[in-house]
């Protein structure tokens, strides 16, 4: 447990450091470009200027001192201001956008994982029957769909042609976000198509992974032994095979999170959903480097934390991994 936490902190440090080096290793001087753009937009306080220079790199000083300043800024959440949304500080923009993405991606991904895993158990247990063939071939194709393409098609059919769902956004533009039941219902309504996109594109991967693990597990000696003992089929499938087949799928869940996040960023772009993906897209289009850099860090740290949770869960589920780690 302590080991995992140390690993987490070390990974966090490494991610922050990667974020420090990317703009510095790139050709050109992103900081100068950013400051020039900012100067054209309005007055910039010396503190803001300093924060941007620390993030993007202006070689007044040595690399070590720049790095120290950058760590100090990162710890205090100083990432400068955005010039796309002048004079909004980068951190407050991210704070507004992050919950939207967390709720959307979190719920849709967990749903896709649970449904896909259960369907995978069923497909493996009914191996060679119609349900196996249909679900295996079907999910091979759906998991090959690019997220943004699924999003575009759903948008075209359900929002544009049938008019069942809103075309874009996360809530009605006429109201500002609050916690009233009517607003929450409206936000949920707006999130149906984006969530469906993540579900459609994500489901197949879990199904296929679980099916293959199950097929492997069902060939193990203890399953044959359980069969020889005359246990019921369902008991063998769920209590013997599925429990062991689930473990690699949970590892895959941690690994796939980054991919799912990437896919949902594209989904957000298509639906103009007010999360970090759409914000990142806007920062890229406008070459808003301070915002882009801070968003990258925020997304990475979120995925890191989610991974830590999955890791801890894995240790809880598989005693062998605990013993190995000890």
């Amino acid at each position, binding site marked *: 447990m302590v080991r995992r936490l140390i*690993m987490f902190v*070390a*990974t966090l440090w*490494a*991610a922050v450091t*990667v974020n420090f080096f*990317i*703009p510095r290793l*790139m*050709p*050109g001087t*992103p900081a100068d470009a950013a400051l020039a753009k900012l100067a054209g937009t309005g007055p910039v306080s010396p503190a803001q200027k300093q924060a941007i220079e620390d993030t993007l790199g202006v070689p007044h000083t040595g690399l070590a001192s720049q790095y120290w300043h950058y760590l100090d800024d990162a710890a205090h959440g100083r990432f400068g201001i955005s010039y796309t949304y002048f004079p909004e500080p980068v951190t407050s923009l991210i704070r507004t956008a992050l919950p939207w993405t967390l709720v959307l991606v979190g719920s849709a991904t967990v749903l896709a994982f649970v449904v896909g895993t259960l369907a995978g158990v069923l497909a493996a247990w009914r*191996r*060679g029957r119609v349900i196996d063939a249909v679900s*295996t*071939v079907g999910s*091979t*194709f759906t*998991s*090959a*769909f*690019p*997220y*943004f*393409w699924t999003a*575009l*098609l759903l*948008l*075209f059919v359900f929002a*544009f042609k049938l008019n069942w769902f809103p075309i874009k956004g996360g809530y009605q533009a006429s109201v500002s976000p609050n916690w009233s039941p009517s607003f929450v219902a409206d936000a949920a309504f707006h999130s149906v198509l984006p969530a469906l996109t993540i579900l459609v594109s994500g489901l197949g991967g879990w199904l*296929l992974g679980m099916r*293959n693990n199950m*097929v*492997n597990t*069902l*060939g193990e000696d203890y399953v*044959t032994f359980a069969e020889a003992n005359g246990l019921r089929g369902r008991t063998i499938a769920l209590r013997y095979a599925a429990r062991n087949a689930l473990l*690699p799928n949970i*590892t895959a869940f941690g*690994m796939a999170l*980054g*991919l799912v*996040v*990437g*896919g949902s*960023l*594209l989904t957000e*772009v298509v639906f103009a959903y007010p999360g970090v993906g759409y914000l*990142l*897209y806007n920062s*890229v289009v406008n070459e808003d480097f301070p915002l*882009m*850099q801070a*968003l*990258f860090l925020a*997304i*990475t740290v979120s*995925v*890191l934390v989610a*991974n830590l949770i999955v890791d801890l869960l894995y240790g809880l589920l598989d005693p062998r991994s605990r013993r190995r780690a000890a």
Partner: protein
Amino acid sequence: MNATRVHTVDIGPRSSWLPRPLWRAVQTVWSNRMARVGVVILGVLVLVAVFAPLLAPYSPTDTDFGRSVGPGAAHWLGTTGSGQDAFSRLLYGARVSLVVAFAAGILSTVIAIAVGLFAGYLVGLAEETINFVVNLFLVVPALPLMIVIATYSPSRGVGVIVLVVVLTGWAWGARVLRAQTATLRGRDFVAAAEFSGERPHRIVFREILPNMTSLVAASFLGAATAAVLGEAGLEFLGLGNPNTISWGTMLFWAQNDNALLVGQWPQILAPGLAIALLAASLSLINFGVDALSNPRLREGVSR
């Protein structure tokens, strides 16, 4: 279990140009119905890419067909917002996607094998260090990293895309291979090899690697699939070279020209479907490859 039934692979007519184990591998993959479908789809796409100049009705860069003409007999998918024949562009687009898929897939797999096997076999500080780097590349979400690097990059093109896709794509395979290596390390045949004084790199490549053929192939197919989808995503966001003729840039331009709103939905549907077909064909082949080293997954073998 049906102990008396031995699964035999029909060698068929002897091939003179393939060594026998490879020939058997091809047969095993081919004997899987889904893999066969995948090979056929991939084969058709490769043929389309190679013979695009013969198949395409027009030049993909010709702009004098009138802007945003709807689908019809002359232009099966209509024309783009700048007056190019969309169907011709679709055929030519297969080239870029296939090149990116194979280049990025091969490069990622080579890195994944090297890193994954040694991390799984070694113990102590070396293992920890390699694991740490692999985990770092795994948790840093790939698409945002690709986006950030591509945004800073002064040149836009297929080469940059292949590089960022490989940079973010190798770690997945490395982790899967590492996990399997760690499992195999504890098996008796590895212990036997160690006791007989075999050197580490021989154990890794001659004892452990052959037991992971399906995982290596799966890493390649997975990395290639991810490359196809990653390329499409980057180009859709406008981070590729907009003058490249590829499925991703087709979608980028279609979205820019509001194709859905002006009834040009075939120009969204067709390139996306082509991407999905390519990615799906790679996954389908993977089913047959799984059967290679895992007889349990072979069709027609009862549990």
